[in-house]
């Protein structure tokens, strides 16, 4: 398929996933801050850390109040990662490849765009952001469902899933990274006193509460971390996302099992393998933050290499790569 089309569909999915995750971040933070008495700034700064957009925020807002942070993450058009920006870019991407996506997907993206635009113009939205966040999540699910149910699961579809899974893995890891230490009272001793309500909120923001309960029952911080990182069956877990990304990558490359044709494929395979054999106790011992940080850096590199391997024009002038290595 055309490189431009592949890149467009890949980013389309990343933007939609990003918008959905921002809605999740806002939701969990809103829940966590309800009834708190701490100073406002302390409560809403973590959200900016989650999305890694603090620098951008500080430039244009004087303080991280609830209103400012919500506005910045939801409807600020100057913030390229706000929900408004993400959905608008996803729709604009779709518009340039309408001959590739199904009309249902196009209509669903249109609806998504209008939903976010309308919400942005209504002052009430940010007073009670939960309803809006819920709508964003649902619309994103509908969109993903429409892609699954109405598009051929061909190369374009796999690029779309590849983008979605990379974005999702990254965002789940950020959510966990920031909230895990905030939720531990002393900021250090993992596994100590536990606030069930707050840990439930974290799980719920990843739609993971029911699945976790079924698997683990009691809420234990270390198990929550394990679930969101290493679970192979829960669709928002980092490990699951990496596995599905690898599956799509293999469908795109046509490589044999446990081999690779592209550099990005090699790196993705390595990342998956390390997650396959990871143990939560080791991770905590070496530092959860360090582990997640490295995970994110690897995903970043994989994203860059995907660009080099499939989208960039420069690769065509380079000598052909070595073929399959087992």
């Amino acid at each position, binding site marked *: *398929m*055309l*490189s*431009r*089309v*592949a890149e467009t569909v890949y980013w389309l999915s990343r933007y939609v996933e990003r918008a959905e995750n921002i809605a999740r971040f806002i939701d969990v933070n809103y829940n966590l801050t309800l009834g708190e008495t701490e100073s406002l700034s302390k409560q809403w700064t973590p959200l900016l850390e989650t999305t890694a957009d603090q620098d951008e925020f500080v430039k244009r807002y004087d303080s991280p109040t609830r209103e400012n942070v919500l506005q910045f993450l939801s409807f600020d058009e100057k913030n390229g990662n706000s929900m408004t920006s993400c959905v608008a870019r996803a729709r*604009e991407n779709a*518009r*340039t490849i*309408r*001959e590739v996506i199904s*009309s249902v997907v*196009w*209509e669903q993206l*249109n609806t998504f765009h209008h939903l976010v635009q309308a919400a942005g113009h209504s002052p009430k939205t940010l007073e009670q952001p939960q309803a809006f966040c819920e709508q964003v999540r649902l619309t994103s699910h509908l969109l993903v469902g429409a892609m699954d149910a109405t598009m051929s699961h061909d*190369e374009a579809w796999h*690029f779309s899933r590849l983008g979605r899974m990379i974005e999702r893995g990254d965002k789940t890891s950020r959510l966990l990274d920031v909230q895990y230490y905030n939720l531990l009272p002393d900021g250090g001793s993992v596994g100590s006193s536990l606030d069930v309500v707050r840990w439930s909120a974290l799980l719920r923001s990843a739609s993971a509460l029911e699945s976790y309960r079924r698997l683990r029952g009691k809420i234990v911080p270390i198990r929550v971390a394990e679930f969101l990182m290493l679970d192979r069956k829960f669709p928002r877990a980092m490990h699951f996302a990496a596995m599905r990304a690898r599956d799509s990558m293999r469908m*795109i490359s046509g490589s044999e099992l446990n081999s690779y044709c592209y550099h990005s494929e090699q790196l993705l395979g390595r990342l998956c393998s390390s997650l396959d054999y990871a143990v939560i106790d080791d991770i905590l011992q070496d530092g959860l933050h360090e582990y997640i940080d490295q995970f994110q850096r690897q995903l970043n590199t994989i994203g860059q290499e995907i660009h080099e391997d*499939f*989208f960039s*024009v420069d690769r*065509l002038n380079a000598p052909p790569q070595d073929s399959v290595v087992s």
Partner: protein
Amino acid sequence: MLLLPYEMDGGFDEMFAPDGRPRASGERFVRRLEALADGNLRERQKSAELNLQNMGITFNVYSHQAGTEKIWPFDLLPRIIDAEEWSMIAKGLEQRIRALNLFVDDVYNDRKIIKDKAVPESLIASSKTLRKQCVGLRPAQRVWCHITGVDLIRDADGQLYVLEDNMRCPSGVSYVLENRELMKRTFAHVFEGMSVEPIEEYPEQLLKTLLDCAPAGVSDPVAVLLTPGVHNSAYFEHSFLAQQMGIELVHGSDLIVKDGFVHMITTRGLQRVDVIYRRIDDDFLDPAHFRADSCLGVKNLMDVYRAGRVSLANAPGTGVADDKAVYAYVPDIIRYYFDQDPILPNVPTFLCDDAKQRQHVLSHLDQLVVKPTNESGGYGILMGPHASANERAECAEAIQKNPRDWIAQPMLNLSTVPTLVGDELKPRHVDLRPFVLCGKDVYVMPGGLTRVALKKGSMIVNSSQGGGSKDTWVLRNGTTANSNSVVTTLESSSC
């Protein structure tokens, strides 16, 4: 429902004769309309509009914020053309397109028509759409213009005229196809049994035309549609046609010239491209040969084209026949190549480059329509009778400064078709753009795009200026089941 009184405005109405009775071609349709319950038509019109919105059939308006898409209004009541008249139109179009293809080929090669003084050398030499880069080229089958959308209008006396040939990148065919689809969805029981010529094979015919013009020796050619991108007003059409034909919709940046061929950049490396249905203008095709500031085109594309390793549809250079001063010579061009009279006449045209004709134009500016020779889409036109004294003075000055850039035509009173306004039928002015494909065969799509000026009395049918569109029905001949679409082989009549 009650159709009358239907108040005509003195011009020619396509559906009703001056005595208020339906014309023979519209009679069955009018009977069916009369049988509808009151309000039914309006309901169906609403349902059609809803369908348009859901199908996302849109066009872009340049003056609006980037990315603004608008729904192009669709009027449910069709324009109906009878079999006999259509057969004449189709023959006339075929004659015209064949002659124009011979003309373009001649202009860039042997220049016989110029040597024989059938058209003046100065006229061709001064044409701004003549492309020197194309001199000496011989496209496959010697066809330069593969896709044409000819604009036809009917004056008050009932005579049809060719207004423009549109030999470059005519658009609108996607609306023809979508309008028919819409008609079938929302007006099925009226449409049923009306014996209307089908148009649905157009994408198939277009694909065949494109593949047929592939460079010699390519056994399984790859065709693509080259679009300027999502902000172009016809982007919807580009996307639609690519999807219908199952070919890739590419941007200039998707294509690259390497090792003497054009390739598209895919996730698996380069893939060779043999035929490009390009929907960008000559000037933007190749920054190395045309406008250097173009970022829409493909660098060195013209080198590959000149080497015969890629085909372009339409070929670069066809614009010379779109020059409105050259247009005035089309009847002579037809006579020159075929020794036949034109079947479809031109609108009488005054060339301002000619001193005598210029004098006539300048002294009759209040009665004439003055047009620049090298613009399309209705830009730069002076409607003499509606213009202010000031505008006319400015126009006169422009004509005297650059007479070659201007032509003038009488103001025609475009024919009308009943159009739904509220609950009533009102006459609204229309034109007609049939689409003609020319490759190994000539295919004339039965009907074409009927554009309608939705404002009362307005003659401006452009989508950007309050125009809408209608389905166009070509009726089959009542007695025979013969198809009216014209497909003949080129060999049989080329000279």
